[in-house]
Each structure stands twice: as C-alpha cells, then as structure tokens.
C-alpha cells in the first residue's frame, strides 16, 4: 500500500489535481446555474414544481449512463465529464436555494416590502443573506457528490483519480483501487471542510447570535 503512494507520487498529484479541477469547475457551473434559477423559482411557485420534478428525474439517471450519453453528444474527454457532473450538482443546489429563499420569515420579507423595497432589493438585502446558510449546505452536499462521481469520469477519458481505480480493476491490483478510493474520500472531506469554513464566513453575523440577550 505504501509502495503505491511512494511509486506513483507524481502521478497521484497530477491525477488528484485533475480530479479536483474537474469537480470544482462542474460545481462552480452548477452554482452559477442553480442559484439564480432557484431564486427565480422561489418567486413562481407553479413553475417551481415543474422544474424541480424535472431535475429530480435527471438525478435518477444512473451516473454511468449519463456519462455514456455524453459521448455521442460531446465526445470524450474533460468537457463531457464536466457537463455531466454539473447536471448532477444542480438538484441539491437548486432545491436548497428554493427552500432557503422560501423559508425566510414572511414577516421579515413583508416588513422589507412595506418599507419600500423593490423585489430586487428584497432579494439582495433580505432574502439572499438570510437564505445563505441553507444554500451553502446545498453546495456542500453537491461538492461531496460531484467529487465522488468524478471518479467515473475516467471512464469517458476525463482522467482524475478514477484512472487508478479503473486500472486497478483491469489489472486486478487492489492497492490501486484502495489507494485511489482513499484519496477521493480525503478530497471530498477536504472540500466539505473548506466549504464549511466558507459557509461560516458568508453567514451574516446577526444570524449566528442566538438569544445572547443583553439587558
């Protein structure tokens, strides 16, 4: 096992970087697409039902199948892998953005509107800051999913840590499979940890104070 890490150290670094970068681009695209759509959906409850059911159906397509479908559409390599992973990351982010925006206290929202906020101001000044913790937990969930699914991206030639695992399967070398899996797990944990930090940082200070009353 240790020999696996020592012998392939440069290869491991390269593959880990590849894996990380495929996942993060997919996640970033997912965030850029899902958060604005989630916000729009929270304003139109009827459309929201339809869109959210469609994305849940997309989520049930087996990941390997989705990757395979990408080949006739986009060929092989990193691009189809990123597109497929991005589609996977959509649902948790979309769902949480929608829930987060809807769970903002009606009285708080109402007060903002009654003070003379436009819809846009209400979103930026009130709803988004208050929904941030819920949206961020959706992003964290997606990050973990995407990193573990990115392993399969190796199957359509995107590289990443999946290469070790598939090689291990083909050559029947357990340490390649286990070693690859360990790094993927660590990467997922690390991403979750870092995003957790980010979540704390972007959560408005007033929301972290609970009941610590003075007077």
């Amino acid at each position, binding site marked *: 096992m240790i020999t696996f890490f020592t012998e392939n150290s440069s290869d491991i670094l390269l593959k880990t970087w590849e894996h990380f970068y495929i996942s993060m681009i997919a996640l970033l695209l997912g965030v850029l697409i899902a958060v604005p759509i989630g916000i729009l959906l929270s304003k139109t409850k009827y459309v929201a039902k339809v869109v959210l059911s469609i994305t849940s159906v997309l989520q049930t397509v087996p990941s390997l199948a989705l990757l395979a479908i990408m080949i006739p559409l986009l060929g092989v390599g990193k691009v189809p892998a990123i597109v497929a992973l991005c589609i996977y990351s959509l649902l948790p982010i979309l769902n949480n953005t929608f829930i987060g925006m809807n769970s903002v206290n009606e009285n*708080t929202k109402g007060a903002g509107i009654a003070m003379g906020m436009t819809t846009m101001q209400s979103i930026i000044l009130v709803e988004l800051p208050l929904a941030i913790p819920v949206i961020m937990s959706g992003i964290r969930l997606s990050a973990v999913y995407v990193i573990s699914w990115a392993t399969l991206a190796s199957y359509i030639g995107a590289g990443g840590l999946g290469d070790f695992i598939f090689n291990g399967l083909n050559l029947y070398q357990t340490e390649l499979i286990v070693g690859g899996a360990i790094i993927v797990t660590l990467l997922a944990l690390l991403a979750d940890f870092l995003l957790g930090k980010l979540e704390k940082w972007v959560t408005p200070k007033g929301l972290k104070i609970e009941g610590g009353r003075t007077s």
Partner: protein
Amino acid sequence: MLKIENLTKVYRGGKVAVDQLNLDINQGEFIAFIGTSGSGKTTALRMINRMVEPTSGKMTLNDKDITKMNPVTLRRSIGYVIQQIGLMPHMTIRDNITLVPHLLKWSKEKKDETARRLIELVNLPPSYLDYYPAQLSGGQQQRIGVLRALAANQDIILMDEPFGALDPITRDTLQDLIKDIQQRLNKTVIFVTHDMDEAIKLADRIAIMHEGKLIQFDTPDNILANPANDFVKEFIGSHRLIQQKPNIKTVDEVMIKPISITIEKSLDEAIRLMVEKRVDTLFVTDGDNRLQGYLDVESFTGARKTKKSVSECYEKDIFYVKTGSKLQDSVRRILKRNLKNIPVVDEEHRLVGLVTRANIVDIVYDTIWGEEEETVQNKKELMSE
C-alpha cells in the same frame, strides 16, 4: 391630510373585507382603527400603503392620489410598524433603523447621525446601535421597529397592533413612549388594535369597524358618551361607560399643589421642609421649576452622614403625567405601578401639580355617592394644607 373615500376591498371569492370606508384624517392626529378580528381594520390599514390593493374607492395623501402613485415610492414615505416587529435579523440595529434612508440613498454620515439621534428618543443607549436584533428583548426590538418607521421623516405612520405581542408592563411603557413621540414630533399615526383601553388611552379619534363597515368615528369621549348603536355599546363594555360618568376628566381638575425643592438645596433644608409641610416626598426641580426627580424619606436612610445636598441623593427615575391628560390614565398608572402619587408637568416639563392616592379615593367616593361638590371641595382643602 389623508382622505379616504368609498374605499372597498373585495377578496377573491367575494368576501367583502372593507365596505365603502370614508375617513378624513388630519395632520398630527392619532387615529385608532378598532374592531373584532375580521372587521377589516387591518385590511383598511394595509390599503393605505398598498400592501393590499383596493378594489375600488379613492385615497388621497396631501392631495395626491395614492392609487396612482408608485407603490415603492409611496411606502418609503409612510412609516409602518407591525406586530411581529419584523426587524432584519442579519442587520445591526443601526442598519435596521436606517433601512428606509438606505433605500433612499442617504449619505452614510446622515444615516449615522439619524440613528444616533433616534435611539435616544426611545431611551436606549447608543451602544445598542452595533447590536443585532437577537441580542435585544421583545420590547426593545419593537422600540427599534418604531424608530425604523420614523427614520426617513415619514409624516404618517401606520401601526398594525404593534404592542400586541408584548407583556402588559412593556406594552404600557411603549404606549406612553409612542404617544409622547407622536405629540412631540407631530406625526400622524394610524393604529390598529382590538384593545379598547389602548384605543382610549392613545387615540384622538377612534374608528370602530364591524364586518368591513365603519360604525362610528369620533373622539373617545364622544364615543363613550354617545355610542352609535348596541354593537358599539357592547364593544366598549359597560364598565368603561360607568368609568366615564364622573364630571372630572383631566388631572388638572383634581391635582393639588406639590411640595417641591430646588436641586441645589442641602439635605437639612429638605428635611426641615418635609417636617414643616408634613409630607414624606419632595419633588426636586431645577431653577426653572422643571421636574428632575424626587426625594422621599427612604432616600435619607444612611445617606445623611455622607451626603450633604439634594443633588447627591435624589431619585432620577420618576413617573409623571402631562397636564391635560385623562384622569383615568393617571389612576391606572398609580395603581399599576403601585405609586403613592404622580406629579403633573406642563409642556416644558415644569412641575404644576400632584395627584395622590387620596385624590383617587375622592374620585371613587364622588362616583359612588354622587356629586357632593362641597364635601369634596372641603376635603381637597384639608389635604393641601
């Protein structure tokens, strides 16, 4: 100032929430909308800032047609206080107070200055400006809720049962505070409540609503004296109709001359004055006879050895009523706070009189055994001696 004509709201499904409402409200008036739940009072209020769109009718604010104004601009010019307070939990108290100025794009300096000036108005320290709503009690939060409705110099303020969720003592304090601010700043306030005591205490005129219709719109005194119909009579409650009977209406008619001492006098002089006038409380005033606090027998205990002058040991926390206020309110305050007496001050905060528990006994006596003016008069003289 605000004119409402034939205002009607019919909800989908045909429920008539407000039916042909007509009201004419003057600048600086305190108006209470009162009624049972479902009477349309809140709907009527929310149509004024167009949180609810009217079905038909006309509303003009300073001769401008409300229904033709941009709702966003309109709402920034009307203060709004809600029962659930609705402060922004992620914003500091400062940002909450200056929310509307922020929307109006005031400069930072002007916003800061406004926040500092306003927080003093509700007796909270300026250090609270950097706190978050979660760090404040419900009563303190609602004080901020009130300030938020004042920050952009709104002339008219709508309040939707603002004190409904507070405990009775906090509610009482806030009622006094809001009435004081309203009079001092000459604001027009429209206040929704289901509490008749609150309406009588605060309002210049009360609009009684029932099933979407305006039943009576008049001053509290006139409503109590001439209820429009049986519904109003029942709504007011018989106990209040009895309370209203005595001829005595304001504190000025029953108050006696208080014994006061100016702030720079020594304690020895204070004690000599107490003995001479046979009283246990002296009211402390400044050179202009402005009320500063009080000094009672208990203030002397132990203090005399170390302290020499009145200014060192008088009590600054004092409850008072303004001249011209209703006797009922003063009585209620005395009883509620368990005070021995309550001083009366004029507009400049000058001490002009005193209402004591003995006065109240007189009033009760008067109410129960009729108008024996002479006896009461004699008693009053006895007491002031």
